């Protein structure tokens, strides 16, 4: 039925152009951040920039593969993809390799694969498939719990690696659910849960509960003479208490010290955080020293010399800020905004529900990565290590993002064939 698909292929060149810009600028900055000696070769596979060039090359093969498959394939096999990536996540606990504290990687010979990057893609496909069913209504408790479970499973498996950053990305799908039919109360509940979680770990249960109590009392007086305010407020308060106590329990009793260490370092609670504090400071110095026009390509002395860890991965944006200045950072942020808005525009013209909801999944995942990564580097979000799409060094993340994006581009390109 769909054999004519490739003949009517009309990919959106604007989004592809934006993709090429982002990956290209990303590569230039990785090159600058990773070359510190007297390198000449672009394709030096012992250095990050050489590998990244290879990853980019290989991702074009991936794109061809995505385009060669029928659009229907992604919808039909969504669950199979999901199953595969979930099994890969489980397999990590047996075959995975621990790299800097987290068991997130498979290592075969010199190649390492991080399955959590692919779990995002398959989760987006499954969520889209689920939401594209006309019968589904997220105000219905059964639908809501089934879908939440699908999202929760990979997120939980990633959380206990422990890789809190990548797990956090899965909140993107709750945004998608909100856009579909989820009650706004859940967004409120979600925000409250995150705040309670952070409060509990930062201040301890007692103080966290104290803060909530204060908040509730304040609300009680603010609401004045409204009816039915005591019940809901009491309910809200008791849920918060239970939540805070269970977070505390899980953290202290279920987690092992290495898990706790990682959270404590992320939250800046450990004694050893001096190095991390110093790095955030260094990252700001690097950005600040860039000024308006920046110091120029390969001239960023601050971002070199091992001051900032993960310089070519999570902190790649500091290189942009130092070498290309405010102008460069502004262009990169503008490119990302254009990219996200263009995706939203493409979503509007989708003819099938699957393509539309998949598109929303894609936008939300990209948005979370963009917002958390840049927010972390410039210091408006606490330190959470997740990559900046297409910029950060790493094969798994680049391919994960390429898959995510190009499956959508493929769906969009064949939208006229769907009748």
């Amino acid at each position, binding site marked *: 039925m769909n054999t004519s698909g490739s003949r009517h292929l009309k990919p959106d060149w604007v989004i592809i152009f934006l993709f090429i810009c982002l990956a290209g600028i990303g590569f230039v900055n990785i090159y600058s951040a990773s070359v*510190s*000696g*007297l*390198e000449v070769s672009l394709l030096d596979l012992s250095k990050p920039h050489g590998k990244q060039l290879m990853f980019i090359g290989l991702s074009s093969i991936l794109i061809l593969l995505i385009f060669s498959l029928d659009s229907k394939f992604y919808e039909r096999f969504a669950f199979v993809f999901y199953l595969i990536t979930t099994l890969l996540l489980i397999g990590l606990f047996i075959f995975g390799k621990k*790299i*800097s504290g987290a068991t997130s990687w498979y290592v075969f010979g010199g190649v390492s694969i991080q399955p959590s990057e692919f779990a995002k893609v398959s989760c987006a496909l499954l969520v889209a498939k689920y939401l594209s069913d006309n019968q589904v209504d997220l105000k219905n408790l059964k639908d809501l719990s089934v879908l939440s479970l699908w999202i929760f499973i990979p997120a939980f498996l990633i959380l206990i690696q422990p890789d809190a950053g990548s797990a956090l990305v899965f909140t993107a799908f709750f*945004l998608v659910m*909100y*856009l579909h039919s989820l009650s706004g109360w859940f967004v409120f509940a979600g925000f409250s849960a995150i705040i309670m979680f952070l409060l509990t770990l930062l201040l301890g249960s007692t103080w966290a509960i104290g803060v909530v109590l204060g908040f509730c009392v304040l609300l009680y007086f603010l609401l004045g003479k409204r009816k039915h305010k005591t019940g809901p407020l009491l309910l809200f308060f008791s849920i918060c208490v239970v939540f805070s106590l269970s977070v505390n329990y899980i953290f202290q009793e279920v987690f092992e010290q290495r898990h706790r260490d990682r959270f404590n370092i992320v939250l800046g609670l450990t004694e050893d955080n*001096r*190095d991390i*504090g*110093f790095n955030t400071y260094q990252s*700001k*110095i*690097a*950005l*600040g*020293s*860039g*000024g*308006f026009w920046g110091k120029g390509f390969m001239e960023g*002395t*601050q971002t*070199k*010399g*091992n001051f900032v*860890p993960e310089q070519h991965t999570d902190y790649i944006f500091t290189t942009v*800020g130092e070498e290309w*200045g*405010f102008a460069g*950072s*502004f262009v990169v*942020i*503008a490119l*990302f*905004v254009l990219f*996200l*808005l263009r995706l*939203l525009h493409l979503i509007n013209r989708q003819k099938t529900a699957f393509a539309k909801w998949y598109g*929303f999944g894609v*936008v*939300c995942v990209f*948005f979370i990565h*963009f*917002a958390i990564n*840049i*927010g972390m580097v*410039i*210091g*408006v979000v606490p330190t959470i290590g997740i990559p900046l799409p297409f910029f950060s060094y790493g094969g798994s993340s680049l391919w994960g993002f390429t898959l995510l994006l190009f499956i959508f581009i493929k769906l969009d390109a064949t939208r006229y064939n769907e009748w």
Partner: protein
Amino acid sequence: MRRFFLHGLILFSAVVFVAKLAQIQLLDNSYELIANNISIKKVYDFPERGYIYDRNGTLLVSNQPSYDIMVIPREVKEIDSIEFSKLLKIRPEDYSQMFSKAKHYSLDLPSVFVPQLSKEDFAALQEKMWKFEGFYIQKRSLRDYQTRHAANILGYIAEVNEAKIAQNNYYQMGDLIGIQGVEKAYEDELRGVKGVKRYQKDRLNRIISSFKDGIYDTLPSQGKDLELTIDIELQSYGEMLMQNKRGGIVAIEPKTGEILALVNAPSYDPALLVGRERSRNFTKLYYDTIAKPLYDRGLLAEYPPGSTFKILNALIALQEGVVSEDTKVYCHNGYFYARGSFMKCHSHASPVDLDSGIYNSCNAYFGTVYTRTLEKFATPQLGIDNWAKHVKSFGLGDFLGYDLPTGKKGLVPTSVYYNRAYPNGNWRPAATVSNGIGQGELLTTPIQLANFTAAIANRGFYYTPHIIRKIEGKRIEVPEYTEKKTTTIDPKHFEPVIEGMFNVFEKGTGRSVRVEGIEICGKTGTAENFTKIDGKRVQLTDHSIFIAFAPKDNPKIAIAVFVENGYWGARWAGPIASLMIQKHLNDSISRKDLEKRMLEGSLLFEYDKPLSGEPFNINQ
């Protein structure tokens, strides 16, 4: 609201980011000032690496100072490289080569220019260092060995490689890290944590003050001292007994699982791997692929256990109730275990029971016992899996879980193995009869042999062998090493078997190495082995094996000795085991003749045979 929810989020975060960036990059000049005018110098304070002692408190490893010349290429100005080379005792042409290597690694990061200068060279250089901008001296501590033995246990330290640096950001170019043995296994404890001091420097690269009053500085924390379970006297004695031979000795204290000695032969002096000669010596040891001094045979060599394994088969048969102590088996220089298949044995009185079966090491007896154990079950598959279950409960066929960083699993064949070998699944217990006498498919490492000997000495349980005794003066409390592992054999079956092992010395294959005044229980073993010469399978002289524990009641030592190509068990391994036991229990040797024969005996001629290219005879 939902329609433009995402648009709103995206634009909102973009505005926040741009505003924050404008503040950092355009409005706030302080960051720029800091970056332009001040760079920060990190100075590391390396703590002294922990000392290593033996179980009696004898110091084995301490430290000596050493000085590395470090370089940061970007800071190097015009210097007199001829004079500098002379001071460093290198050739001027080496200077430029080494300098470009450092530049290739990084312009801004320090790399080691010349490692491990001696105290004298350092003294001569120190007062002239001001002339050579961009170079500085980093003090480190190197190992100073107080013993010439136990190199395989202690391991060594060396400069960390780039792969490790990428994996663990604690380490930096030039840092030292444990590579083998205890140095690797207890790297984190021995190493301590280096401290960092940060200084601000002005444009002329002069240190002007501590950075931010030292709020980012950290203090070093000292490395911890270790006390090992080995007795260095016993260890050195074992190494001397094994000189000019190849193989291993593993001695364990049964009631704790503490490794008393772990001898590897041939061995080397640990001091060879220290200082500027390290890499030359290492290369020499590493490329000796014939004697393989770096290959820790006690942990890594998988040999067939030979007749020592008969002890386990006796225990399993008793547990399964297929024989009693009095069951008799006839043996006339061997027996037919299947139609037309004869297993040879040496000549001894017939029939034999459990006791004389053990002390005569009768193949017919154990072939029979083994087949009966398997035939108790409906299929040979069930039979062999049940047998393997018992064998594995003695710690064979898998990593033991000790705390040294190398090991091998060995092999205990199960039905899966034989079903693969006989794809139709149509095999009989008799096909695997070699397992009954410890030949065939079975493979064990010497430490596994010593461990199952300890389990027999304890009458049915063992503690995982380990090398660590105390950390910083405190007894270890690792459950892995302090919890009993129980075997699947009931304690009551051990006594008759141990009686047989006792009689090995009183009237059996171990008569010649009996020690007056010590009740030793043991078992000889002789293992056939093969090598490949020009692609052809060639049999070599048998391995000489011996396991033993003593005293019979309340055992203090369990030992396994393995001498490659030493021929029968009582020829080399037996005497060495009995000397080791006497050394440990009495601290003096009464049999000076035997001791002299072992110390001076050499098997090098035997090892030369397969390399000579000439035809040769074995088992002479």
